[in-house]
């Protein structure tokens, strides 16, 4: 039963990685940029959620929605100010800019409020835990899972059934052909950043509730792991990011459970190295050579 308990923990953690990984993969899919500032959007979401709850005494769901909306706007601003002017620049220039944006957000936050951590109140959602066949699943795990699954289904709906979702897929496949359909490429890219950032914001609030401690550099490690998850699933592929995130969470939980909890953070990068060696296009990717 212990192992099932660990699996449940792994899936909860993994669904947080998955939410962050979605933003990496959607943005990469459309502008071929690894947005290294994405983990910091996650951090900003955690803080916005925290302030909503502690200062304005809002509940979990209102805080979640506000953090998502604020992060969506933040993501669009980052894209318009930092990345859009570099749309036709070399990839390395954009990548270096992304690292710069990341550092700017991290240390801007420290400058604005200091480096000290905050603690999410532990009683935001008075949920009882559930006993199922001797496995104790905490109310929080259930809430995390429920929220993540709902958001992922919502995302699938947006991407496959709505006009903006179809435009996003068209632009990520062939920008000029999309233009010939009358699609406004700039707006579509902004929408992609908005959606990806909103998901990261949601992940931030969920993370804060689960681990309680938040601080300005908290986005770095989950951000990197979510990046690994996106690569694991196949960067640019939405179901890949979901699967990659969940898988990584479960792998970590199992590594901890087998008594190697000190290796928990390291194992993500072992996974990254292995996937790059044996299946560089990721689990869901076709191993094709890059088009010239």
């Amino acid at each position, binding site marked *: 039963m212990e192992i099932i308990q660990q699996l449940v923990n792994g899936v909860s953690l993994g669904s947080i990685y998955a939410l962050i990984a979605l933003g990496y993969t959607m943005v990469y899919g459309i502008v071929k940029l690894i947005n290294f500032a994405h983990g910091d959007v996650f951090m900003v979401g955690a803080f916005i959620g925290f302030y909503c709850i502690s200062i304005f005494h809002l509940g979990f769901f209102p805080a979640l929605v506000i953090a998502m909306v604020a992060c969506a706007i933040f993501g669009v601003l980052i894209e318009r100010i930092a990345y859009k002017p570099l749309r036709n620049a070399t990839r390395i220039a954009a990548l270096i800019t992304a690292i710069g944006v990341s550092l700017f957000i991290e240390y801007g936050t420290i400058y604005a409020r200091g480096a000290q951590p905050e603690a999410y109140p532990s009683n935001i959602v008075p949920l009882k835990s559930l006993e199922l066949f001797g496995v104790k699943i905490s109310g929080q795990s259930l809430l995390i899972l429920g929220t993540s699954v709902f958001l992922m289904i919502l995302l699938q709906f947006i991407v496959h059934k709505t006009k903006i979702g*179809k*435009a996003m897929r068209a632009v990520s496949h062939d920008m000029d*052909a999309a*233009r*010939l*359909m*009358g699609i*406004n490429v700039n707006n579509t890219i902004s929408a992609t950043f908005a959606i990806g950032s909103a998901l990261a914001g949601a992940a931030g609030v969920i993370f804060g509730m689960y681990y309680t401690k938040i601080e300005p550099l908290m986005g770095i490690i989950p951000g990197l792991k979510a990046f690994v998850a996106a690569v694991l699933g196949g960067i640019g592929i939405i179901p890949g990011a979901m699967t990659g995130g969940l898988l990584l969470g479960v792998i970590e939980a199992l590594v901890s459970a087998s008594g190697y909890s000190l290796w928990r953070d390291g194992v993500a990068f072992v996974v990254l190295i292995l996937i790059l060696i044996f299946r560089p296009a990721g689990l869901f990717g076709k191993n094709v050579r890059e088009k010239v």
Partner: protein
Amino acid sequence: MLKINDINVYYGNIHALKGVSLDINQGEIVTLIGANGAGKSTLLKTISGLLKPKNGEIVFEDEHIAGKVPQLIVKRGLGQVPEGRRVFSNMSVEENLELGAYLRKDKKGIREDFEKVYQLFPRLLERRKQLSGTLSGGEQQMLAMGRALMGQPRLLLLDEPSMGLAPLLVKQIFNIIEEINKTGTTILLVEQNANMALSIADRAYVIETGKIVASGSAEELSASDQIRNAYLGGH
């Protein structure tokens, strides 16, 4: 309907179009012929707003469109079937056609145009749920044309629709182009298959290394020795 006046287009410091002028009247089929690298696709991309001319004018139905964004140009009724089809291969036939109607809001009209496109290309109806990347080259060409028609263009630009197709299929595609023209869509047809293009066109332009070197009625150009030697394989 479309009037291009002395445009110059550059790729960095490559001068791809050198003072090109061209006219298209309502209802015509005009063909633009020229060898590889002459600048045909560059001209179509410039008309559609994918490239901006350094100078010169492009006037579509009394509106200056040079340098305007593509979505505005599409909205005005100027569609393009790009070279190499460029279908969205990760989406179904139906979704591709839907994207063709991206700027339209008239649900009823869109439904009617689906019918029309499926009538014109029954193959697309059979394969409407299939991923367009798995269609044959000919079917993809039909899809690219159907997709452009979904935008209700009054002027349709076609970039080498016969490329890579078997002769029988080429004939079929050209018949459909004539049919589209008869329903009131004006056509600018870019082709390397000059014989076929001249056979359905009213007028033609010949482009060589970025310059228009000849123009006239399709009969005139078909009869000209110079054109016959360069583009129609002698005789």
